[in-house]
């Protein structure tokens, strides 16, 4: 079956020069991760300690208000908190008491730091400790920062998961930890495949419920499903766990490489792995091929958004036949995306950070067939005649592993097909 996969490029992008820019960043801050994390962890509540802007961001980034009371909220700092008239810690304790009294279902509470709370140096770690002692054992209180001065978009999830690592119980068991918040459907498929391959002890971080035991130790190997988990990676290594480097499980090739790397780490014979994945691989290829008809030969430009850009560029160039012009990422962790960079053929500009005005100049000059960008840029670029794909959909949609490979490709194909479909001129 390997005949379908092109050989790795002679020269990948791992050592390509990186264009580093700073200026206006057209990206979300790390608080945005709460939008999907609060759905993933069903007994967790995320309490942002911040300003009205933070609250407004959360409800605007969600696009629509979530029907029913969401499991997140903002403790909005007011003038009296800043002027030192009120003891911010006491205020926070009061708000948390009220919240937990109202919400008996909450087992984990995350105090999430924001730009204002960081600037005024509110010690949320200490607050979390005190609150944990107060509400134990029913509720565990943790803290992390999702502030824009420290985190970019998906780094909020990274900070959240990294904050959970030190609290995990020790274990010497030989086990696999799958790390990253995935939609349940994709996660279940992955766990099923891994079980069929013969890995019997698997845990997932983050777990869906607080009482699911997730342990870690020197015999734990971990595989990341998301490219933005640099801090969590470091935290797990500090606990003695070992990272399994692999391309990210996007598309047929990425998923296969990811599963094989995990199997290798557990000493499982590749022939056995291949027997398990043969059928889903074929299905994934077939599904991708359909969307690739639209994508093949088309040029592609990534604005930085989620850190998924490099793995996705690898998928779109190698499996869908696209040509990358620029691949921008907010940060590039080579320890994580190195295997994907190896597979991405040398050629595109690899950029890190952003000066949005300069990048827009490059994009306009390149006139790519498809531009992947955030919500603030998509409509303005469409109005200029470019075809765009909103990046945020990539973190909200099941796109990992074999059965979603076709969906992933069609997320990119749909705007292009739409451009071809619309006939808005007079008939003549």
């Amino acid at each position, binding site marked *: 079956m390997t005949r379908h996969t092109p050989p790795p490029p002679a020269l990948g992008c791992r050592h390509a020069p990186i264009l580093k820019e700073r200026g206006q960043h057209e990206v979300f*801050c790390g*608080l945005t991760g709460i939008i999907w994390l609060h759905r993933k962890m069903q007994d967790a509540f995320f*309490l942002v300690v911040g300003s009205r*802007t933070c609250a407004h961001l959360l409800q605007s980034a969600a696009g629509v208000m979530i029907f029913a*009371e969401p499991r997140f909220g903002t403790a909005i700092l007011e003038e009296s908190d800043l002027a030192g008239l009120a003891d911010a810690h006491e205020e926070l304790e009061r708000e948390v008491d009220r919240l937990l009294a109202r919400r008996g279902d909450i087992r984990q509470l995350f105090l999430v730091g924001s730009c204002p709370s960081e600037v005024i140096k509110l010690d949320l770690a200490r607050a979390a400790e005190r609150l944990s002692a107060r509400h134990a054992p029913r509720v565990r209180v943790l803290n992390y920062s999702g502030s824009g001065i420290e985190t970019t978009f998906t780094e909020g999830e990274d900070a959240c998961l990294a904050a959970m690592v030190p609290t995990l119980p020790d274990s010497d068991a030989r086990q696999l930890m799958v790390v990253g918040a995935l939609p349940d459907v994709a996660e279940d498929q992955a766990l099923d495949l891994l079980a069929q391959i013969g890995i019997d002890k698997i845990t997932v971080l983050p777990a869906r419920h607080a009482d699911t035991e997730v342990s870690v130790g020197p015999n734990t190997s971990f595989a990341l499903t998301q490219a933005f988990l640099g801090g969590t990676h470091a935290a797990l290594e500090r606990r003695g766990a070992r990272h399994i480097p692999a391309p990210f499980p996007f598309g047929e090739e990425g998923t296969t490489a990811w599963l094989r790397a995990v199997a290798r780490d557990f000493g499982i014979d590749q022939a056995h792995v291949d027997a398990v994945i043969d059928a889903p691989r074929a299905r994934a290829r077939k599904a991708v091929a359909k969307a690739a008809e639209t994508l093949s030969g088309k040029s592609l430009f990534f604005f930085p958004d989620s850190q998924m850009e490099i793995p996705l560029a690898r998928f779109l160039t190698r499996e869908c036949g696209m040509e990358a012009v620029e691949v921008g990422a907010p940060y590039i962790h080579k320890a994580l995306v190195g295997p994907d960079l190896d597979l991405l053929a040398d050629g595109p500009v690899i950029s890190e950070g952003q000066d949005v005005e300069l990048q827009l100049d490059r994009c306009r000059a390149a006139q790519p067939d498809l531009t992947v960008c955030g919500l603030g840029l998509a*409509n303005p670029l469409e109005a200029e005649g470019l075809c765009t794909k909103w990046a945020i959909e990539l973190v909200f949609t099941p796109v990992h592993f074999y059965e979603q490979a076709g969906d992933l490709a069609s997320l990119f194909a749909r705007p292009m097909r739409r451009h071809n479909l619309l006939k808005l001129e007079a008939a003549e």
Partner: protein
Amino acid sequence: MKLSVWTYEGPPHVGALRVATAMQGLHYVLHAPQGDTYADLLFTMIERRNHRPPVTYTTFQARDLGSDTANLFKTACEAAYERFQPQAMIVGASCTAELIQDDPGGMAETMGMPIPIIPLELPSYQRKENFGADETLFQLVRRLAQPMERTEQVTANLIGPTALGFRHRDDITEVTALLNHMGIAVNVCAPYGATPEDLSRLGAAHFNVLMYPETGEAACRWMERDLGLPFTKTVPIGVGATRDFVNEVAQITGLAAKLDDSRLRLPWYSASVDSTYLTGKRVFIFGDGTHVTTAARIARDEMGFEVVGLGCYNREMARPVRALAKEYGVEALISDDHLDVEAAIAEAAPELILGTQMERHIGKRLGIPCAVISSPVHVQDFPARYSPQMGIEGANVIFDTWVHPLVMGLEEHLLTMFREDFEFHDDAGASHHGGAHVARDAGGLSAPRPGQAGTPPEDISEQEKTGEVIWLDAAERELKKIPFFVRGKAKRNTEAFASERGLEEISIDTLYEAKAHYAR
């Protein structure tokens, strides 16, 4: 510190953004960390604007703090001027930048830019979005508007419409037509569509039309004092208000009051017998002060509804809204906490909510139909079709919009008669909404209901505790025959009645005894 889940208004710099985005030739340099750029999508996605808002965010990071955030601001200012060549710039800080006290206004003024630079002081921890818009327009007008000769023809400025406003785009067209019919031309409409140069010509008009007090009042008051421009106090939303507005304009200008009402349909539609079923419908009105005030008058005087509750989220309008509530015999709800609003609506158990997108969600949860009358807005509030709220066409639009969510006349009777029909029943909602309408369940006015699209139901705190008294099956079936909008109240009253008497079970008799008891 105050816990908030959803907010009615953004921070004040978002108000400034609404002014900047509505204008042309103006640029806003905002000292802000990364992430604050989310505000761009309010305009590009919700309002579907085809341009980026004219804003440069300085995007400082943790490592810049204490070193060169001030320098970052200066560089951003220079680059913005260089690239966009605006006629004027506004500069200010978002909530985080306010804390690091770089004084963007002071810095920008010393930079020797060849254009007017208007510094904004918007206290992020005290005030909100509407204040930010109002203050920004006021500062712009104060700086740019000059006293000048009046135009020969009678002209007016339209003051207050902004980007991301509720139907502002179409209200401008409608009010312009109202004025034109009286022989009045529009001198400048601001901020919507105006350039800084246009603002300098504001003084040429004979008077101002204050379209939205929330975002235009400070500017109008300043122009009244410093440029001698009177401004209108009536907001022409509704038939009566539109007629009053025309009379007010006539009084200010000395021109004859003329209104072309040949396309006005609300009065006849409201009088026609099909509308009899609207009589006394109990409505709860919540939104910004201006839209609530105008909606209350329409609801009572033009639709024949009964106003059972009203309030606004913007404290700036608390006084007029309180006075109005008194006139309507209800207590005003002045709150920006949507949980308070939800509780008040559940308590009042209205048949229709006139509210914002927040109340639309509350209505979904409580099973009460809702029509949206005010910001905060959603992408749905920017329809492709012409859909004003003001003037003659605005009144027509409002009639349709408010009636649409309701179950119509005869259908309502049939529902009452055949309450247990398996497909034509109360829980099915209005038939013209198809299956999408949320079903109403038995009495649980504040009970959570299953989420849509497969999401699990959320546990919400206010879930009714019905543990103490047990409803017998027959009584529960009988309860379902009571119209949904009073069912919650009936359920609570019956339970209170039962527990006062130490009853452990509720039978049909208990239900009707309670009904008789509370009827007294």
